[in-house]
């Protein structure tokens, strides 16, 4: 048989590596373009706008760090800052603890497993505004509000949930935690399922108790899942908006700004006061916080 070697000239002109790169980038081009225009450009432009005074009508006017100076000098900003961190610092651990407890026990039952899981997941796929309004109705004074009616029939005092500067923020936080619970449960259960059963069997034969198994095996092996959820949930709480806006529509972020998070403040500065420069400065602060917190959490929970 004659040996026919393909001559180097007859092969494709581009190397395999180049051809592959072109192919990959052909697919990536569209999303990259899309994100550049609708995500990255506005994000970067926000940094520029934060140094300007702009009311949408006249062109932006450069004012240096005036927006930041005004923001850090205003009492309202620091109130909003405290609120935002209250959502984050209380909301994230409570929601994780709750979802882990539910996932841990839900993972062990067979009867009604699918039904219960669906029940927990339902709030996550429900429109936030609809949910906000239903909870708002729950929190009404008796006889309209379910919770106060129950409290009343038990002979206990009434709570002014959404109209109290003390209770409004926790009341809204409960709604937010409840809304995100289903997602966290699903993710945690997937994490629990991925731990091989033999790890538990080996520990049981070695005589290790349930609590020690949880502490020494389950939690350490669940760490990647936990890291993901901590970061994900923190970002969620730092960006909380829907629940607050819908549950306090009469005075968004009220009473007296006691529930107002950063995102709502940005929204109001931009679209009620039309102070785009100031809103951009607030956005830059939010961005910086999000970045710092995410990096900090990834660093704390890193694999050593």
């Amino acid at each position, binding site marked *: 048989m004659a040996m026919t070697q393909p001559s180097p000239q007859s092969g494709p002109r581009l190397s395999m590596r180049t051809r592959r790169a072109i192919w990959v980038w052909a697919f990536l081009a569209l999303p990259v373009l899309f994100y550049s225009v609708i995500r990255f450009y506005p994000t970067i432009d926000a940094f520029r706008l934060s140094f300007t005074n702009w009311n949408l009508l006249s062109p932006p006017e450069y004012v240096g760090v005036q927006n930041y100076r005004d923001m850090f000098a205003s009492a309202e900003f620091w109130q909003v800052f405290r609120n935002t961190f209250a959502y984050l610092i209380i909301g994230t651990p409570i929601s994780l603890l709750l979802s882990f407890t539910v996932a841990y026990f839900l993972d062990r039952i067979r009867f009604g497993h699918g039904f219960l899981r669906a029940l927990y997941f339902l709030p996550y796929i429900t429109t936030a505004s609809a949910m906000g309004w239903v909870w708002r109705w729950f929190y009404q004074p008796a006889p309209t509000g379910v919770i106060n009616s129950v409290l009343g029939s038990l002979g206990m005092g009434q709570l002014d949930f959404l109209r109290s500067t003390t209770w409004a923020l926790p009341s809204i936080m409960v709604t937010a935690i409840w809304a995100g619970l289903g997602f966290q449960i699903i993710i945690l259960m997937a994490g629990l399922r991925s731990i091989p059963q*033999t790890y538990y*069997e*080996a520990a*049981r*034969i*070695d005589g*290790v108790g349930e609590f020690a198994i949880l502490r020494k095996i389950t939690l350490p*092996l669940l760490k990647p899942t936990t890291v993901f959820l901590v970061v994900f949930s923190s970002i969620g709480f730092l960006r909380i908006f829907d629940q607050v806006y819908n549950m306090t529509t009469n005075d968004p972020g009220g009473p007296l700004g006691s529930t107002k998070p950063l995102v709502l403040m940005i929204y109001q500065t931009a679209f009620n006061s039309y102070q785009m420069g100031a809103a951009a400065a607030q956005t830059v602060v939010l961005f910086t916080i999000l970045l710092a917190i995410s990096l900090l959490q990834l660093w704390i929970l890193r694999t050593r």
Partner: protein
Amino acid sequence: MATFELRKLVKTYGRTPVIHGIDLFIPDGEFVVFVGPSGCGKSTTLRMIAGLEEVSGGEIRIGDRVVNEVDPKERNLAMVFQNYAIYPHMTVRQNIAFGLYTSRLSGAEKARKVEAAAALLGLTPLLDRRPSALSGGQRQRVAIGRAMVREPAGFLFDEPLSNLDAQLRAQMRIEIKDLHRRLGTTIAYVTHDQVEAMTMADRIVVMKDGHILQAAPPMEIYDNPADVFTARFIGTPSMNIIPAQSDAGVLSPAEGKAALLAGIRPHDLTIGAEVVDPALVLAGKVTAVEPLGPETLVHFEAAGQHIIATAPAHGQIAVGSRVTASAGRGRVHLFDGATERALGRQ
């Protein structure tokens, strides 16, 4: 140190029975290997002894205590799993020490035991490594180490070598057997590999479909298998089984369904060697030749059956040629054609 005893042990999943009332006594210090094909119930039996599966009927005794309702941790057993079950987030030292998690020993005493187990298993230089930095064989040794430090009454091994390559498996077989010799602890070992069973066991328990077919020392099973399944399962290549008829003490292949089955191990069916007064002679056309080095396996068709025989290493047998193979007196196992139970040898 402990004896294990299974009495009329039954396991059912829902309505499906998987273990049909088996009886077995394992004396103190014995190395028993449960062997059988997938789904024969050997692992389930071991897991019931461990306490990881509930007993549906009958009883399990460890020593003279019935342990049916005893928690795994109260049974004082240690188990080694096929996937090792060593914890990826702990070092080798922590993994081995985890076996002593509940022990009331002092820290120094625990550390001494961990060091001793590691030394015995050749793990000392690896003590501060994570499992991800270990080879399969080393991981399995860590799992054995964790089991060892507890000084349990008995060891349970559930296919511990199945994830290792052939060379490592051969090495670990010897190590585990040596460990048993030194510790003298009762071992129940599950495998589907008959070579592991033959090489390691004091006694082999052959299981099929939730029944024990035969429980006997390896050579006893090899020499006198109780039925066709055991005969074919133990020994490689598998025993040849052909329908046969016996006429005045002379065996010959039979056509169709016969009252007798004749079993001849390939090593007892020789080509090209002089056999005086053979018990059975088979002739046929060669379909394949497999030189193994010291000998050559010759596949041929005879009496409508696929037969494997052995020939000398340099026999020069060609595929397609006709060969005659013969088995000596006392080398042919006879089985009942209907029940497939052994009837003795001829």
